[in-house]
């Protein structure tokens, strides 16, 4: 074996062999990581409809998820949030320019939700809160309607 070939083999082992070993270690270490539960899709509100924004009777909320980051559409309200531990907290982005009800116009609006990971179909319990004066929190439960992932 020539000196040049030996040198090439040594370089190959360092630049190709070592990263491959590292990859195996990464896949092993990554198996212990946990990602948030999937919540993307439409969630049907059970029982009484929720008054949210300009809509007096909202019966579903839509969630778009990128890991811990969430976009929540609830009636005319568009909220942005994230997972905090097991719970989801989303707040309205900016002020509403529409003639929302008193509780939603120019007031901070947030929704807190928590998914029950055990039951199928998935369910969540949530509370819609407004900073408007005299606005009581609205509690709701919702069931996941259509998982939106894995298109073919």
């Amino acid at each position, binding site marked *: 074996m020539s000196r*040049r*070939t030996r040198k*090439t083999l040594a*370089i*190959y082992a360092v*630049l*190709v062999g070592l*990263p*491959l070993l*590292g*990859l195996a270690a*990464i*896949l092993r*270490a*990554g*198996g212990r*990581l*946990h*990602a*948030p*539960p*999937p*919540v*993307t899709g439409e969630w049907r509100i059970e029982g009484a409809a929720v008054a949210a924004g300009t809509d007096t009777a909202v019966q579903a909320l839509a969630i*778009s*998820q*990128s*890991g*811990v*980051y969430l*976009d929540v559409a609830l009636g005319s309200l568009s909220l*942005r949030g994230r997972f905090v531990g097991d719970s989801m907290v989303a707040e309205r982005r900016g002020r509403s320019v529409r003639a929302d009800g008193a509780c939603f116009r120019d007031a901070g609006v947030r929704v807190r939700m928590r998914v029950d990971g055990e039951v199928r179909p998935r369910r969540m319990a949530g509370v819609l809160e407004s900073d408007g004066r005299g606005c009581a929190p609205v509690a709701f439960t919702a069931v996941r309607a259509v998982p939106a*992932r*894995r*298109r*073919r």
Partner: protein
Amino acid sequence: MQLGLLLVQIAIIVIAARCVGLLFRRIGQPQVMGEMVAGIMLGPSLLGGLAPDLSARLFPAASLGFLNSISQVGLLVFMFLVGLELNPKLLRGRGHTALVTSHASIVIPFFLGSLLALLLYPRLSDASVTFTGFALFMGAAMSVTAFPVLARILTERGLMRTRVGSVAIACAAVDDVTAWCILAVVVAIVRSSDGALPVWATVAGSLVFVAWMVLVVRRALALLERRYEQNGRVTQDMLAVILLVALSSAWATEALGVHALFGAFLAGAVMPKGEGFVHALTGKLEDVTVVLLLPLFFAFTGLRTHIGLVEGGEMWGYCALIILVAVVGKFGGSAVAARLTGMNTREAAAIGALMNTRGLMELVILNIGLDIGVISPAVFAMMVLMALATTFMTSPLLELVYPARLIRRTRLDAAGDAEPRERPHVAA
């Protein structure tokens, strides 16, 4: 779906792609870079943000399925052309440098992409995706090189006849084939967890199918080349047979749980490689694909790219990290390997800059990742930005590390050497 709306959509997309593409060409960028940007501009990141009502009227959600179907057919033909352009002769006689550089330029970015997945998985993925699937996909997406864009840059800069050019094109060919094989495995893993075929069945079936294509179909296709040599042209009947082979191969790999695009690429790769035949076949298929169908794919990609999802310092930080890892892995990995195996510093840096071009191939892979749900919309947007950034930086970076005067000198030095003739290249 109204035919009228579809025609208007196609017209707008083609106009935007040509205009922005030409604009980018004027600033020294590959035209495909502008076409990719035009697609993003037609989506929610620009048109949808500035004129949401117009955007909703021009591209209603219900119409996107048709647009996607047409763009997928275009993509199948394009992948066939990419495979057609690959020539095993590119790999012969390139020596130690090409061997080590090509493998290092895949494995190092793959490793770094998977390492990055340790950080991103808990934050930007969800439990419906396994870490293995996410990490392997990130690795594959980081290790891709846009063979067609690279070939075009080499030709435009007169680098094809230099040592840098011949090593880069050989490495890109190896990278393309390897990245697609890795992606096939990733797709099989992800789909198997969805209840499709088990991984072993997909892998075994794919190996048998590849062997069938290489050992049987390739020999049968050699008859076409002989017919071409007799007729002096690719007849419509020959073209029909070739397209049927490509479509059948695409269907077979899709049925095996890999992806239709892999089959189209494989069909192109096993086609006869005679220069005249490849040139004639490319000429028949390329223009309509590149001018009409590929912009539809860019627009469809743009319509599903929400750059607004990348919001706040934390997410922009992840995006910057993705771009950094992509550049360090591909540029750094290729350059270090080339330098250690005997190229001088400027040549090695030029190899790194060229291999860092991701272009359209990255968008193809990202769309597959989004379709099978292995990456989230925010990661998709970040990776699209990475594809744009790495493609955009190629020309200026190359000019910086390997300026035109050096290329001219290298070509003069090499004058008189027997060099392979330049081949036609798919334009995107």
